[in-house]
């Protein structure tokens, strides 16, 4: 009896918090049939925003995957002073508000008054109000997701298989490619999907660093806000629906593909 009550509570909770609101976004996106969707897909500025969002997300995910796996290996396989501090630092992006991240990045990389920005600008490299800044902000907020997925898997797998590979003649690169990577594969994939979803949806930090220039640095999430504030609810819902669709599709695909015994 208690079991069913608990289940019902969880289902109701998820329904009212996640499923129902998401469904309503979809419903509103299709309120006029396909008009809203075709409307935004025919607007070159919005198509640019969607393309920019996907580009930024893909670059950010690649960077976060490479560094994420590297940092995870460092955290699990090596002992060094300050390891706990590093581990705690890695949670900062999750706990600090993205808008703070955005402001912080402007302080460092801002073209006119930033600590590091003017030097970069003189070298012909603009960060803030440009694509690199958007990538930087996105990388920052999604940084811990790969690490938090990979670290527990690495810990569980242990290092005996790696030692066995070394004793059989494999060097560090061969050991990583043939033994470590296949054993943490699902952790990495899940981390990639989570950071992809997070990167597509980043709003606060991007809003501060991008400058929100239509057709240049405006991303999909910024389009949603803009349209919503300008009473173009149909367009806002349609864009929001596309964003949610990609993220949810990624997560569902992976949970179906992921082998059950892997957890």
């Amino acid at each position: 009896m208690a079991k069913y009550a608990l289940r019902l509570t969880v289902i109701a909770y998820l329904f009212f918090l996640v499923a129902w609101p998401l469904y309503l976004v979809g419903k509103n996106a299709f309120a006029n049939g396909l008009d809203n969707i075709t409307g935004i897909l025919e607007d070159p500025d919005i198509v640019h925003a969607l393309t920019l969002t996907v580009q930024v997300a893909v670059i950010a995910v690649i960077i976060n995957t490479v560094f994420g796996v590297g940092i995870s290996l460092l955290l699990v396989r090596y002992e060094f002073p300050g390891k706990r501090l590093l581990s705690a630092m890695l949670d900062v992006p999750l706990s600090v508000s993205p808008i703070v991240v955005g402001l912080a990045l402007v302080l460092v990389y801002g073209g006119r008054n930033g600590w590091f920005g003017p030097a970069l600008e003189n070298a012909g490299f603009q960060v803030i109000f440009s694509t690199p800044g958007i990538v930087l902000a996105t990388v920052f907020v999604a940084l811990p997701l790969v690490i938090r997925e990979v670290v527990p898997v690495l810990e569980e797998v242990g290092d005996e298989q790696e030692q066995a590979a070394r004793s059989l003649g494999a060097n560090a690169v061969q050991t990583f490619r043939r033994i470590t990577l296949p054993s943490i594969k699902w952790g990495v994939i899940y981390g990639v999907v989570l950071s992809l979803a997070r990167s597509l949806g980043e709003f606060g930090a991007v809003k501060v660093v991008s400058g929100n220039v239509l057709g240049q640095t405006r991303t999909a999430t910024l389009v949603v806000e803009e349209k919503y504030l300008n009473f173009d609810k149909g367009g806002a819902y349609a864009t929001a629906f596309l964003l949610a669709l990609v993220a949810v599709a990624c997560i569902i695909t992976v949970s179906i593909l992921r082998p059950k015994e892997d957890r």
Partner: protein
Amino acid sequence: MSIEIKNVNKRFGDFVALDNVSVSIPSGQLTALLGPSGGGKSTLLRIIAGLESAESGTVEIEGLNATKLPPQKRNVGFVFQHYAAFKHLSVARNVAFGLEIRKRPKDEIRERVNELLDLVHLRQFADRLPSQLSGGQRQRMALARALAVQPTVLLLDEPFGALDAKVRKELRDWLRRLHDEVHVTTVFVTHDQEEALEVADEIVVINEGRVEQIGSPDELYDQPANDFVMKFLGPVTQLGDRLVRPHDLHLQVGERDAEAVSGRVTRVTRIGFEIRVEVSTGDQVVTVTLNRNEFLSLGIGTGAEVQVRVAPDVPAVVRAAA
């Protein structure tokens, strides 16, 4: 000499794992590193393999100074207590791993893998994953994998430690027979003295980071260098100030002679073919083991007055540490 270890020291924090250890391990033999847990024997094995580094001292493998070599350049085969099977690879691919790394031709790899799988009786499981094998089968696979690269030395770290008693005994016999066929210099770590005495040609007793004694099983059992080795290699009892094996003591009834100590039987326990008699000599309790016939011919029971003496020509007698 195949493996020369000279003045090796290793510390983990404040804990001294190896204290100036020097050992020579002979070629082509099966050598056991025997000692209690935490005594440093696994650390020594891992230093030979290059999986740990010594703080000082040198390791030489077949005349080659390996002290600074990374594990993949030492050409050693290593077998882990918990198998360290590559979980995502089939049994055949596990065995082939070292050969694939060495970029051997495919035909050669296939042939060699089949040969090894026959040797460890796993040919019919070639395409299974390690998770579909029993513990004993996994360990045989790990052994085949280590042998595939034709290592100069084969190192086994408590290879049977994770297996149940019956499988352990079988694998032990099998390892001995395998070694008689393959003849690769083999070093294995164990804390089980029976395993070492049964399988090894040569035993190195290690305790608290130091080598206590090196010798053949007979030498160690019959001429232990000190009371630690004596106690570690088999059952021990104390008669007066002497340490003796319980089966080297004789019981007699009737007339007291000069070398015997008299006492009273306090307890009789039968363990299969062996009878264990505890005799109280007043200030100490001496354990004597007899076989069934010896016991019956004495005709004694609990409470009987008996004489205890050390059997003549007993080699293993050590003065008890004060």
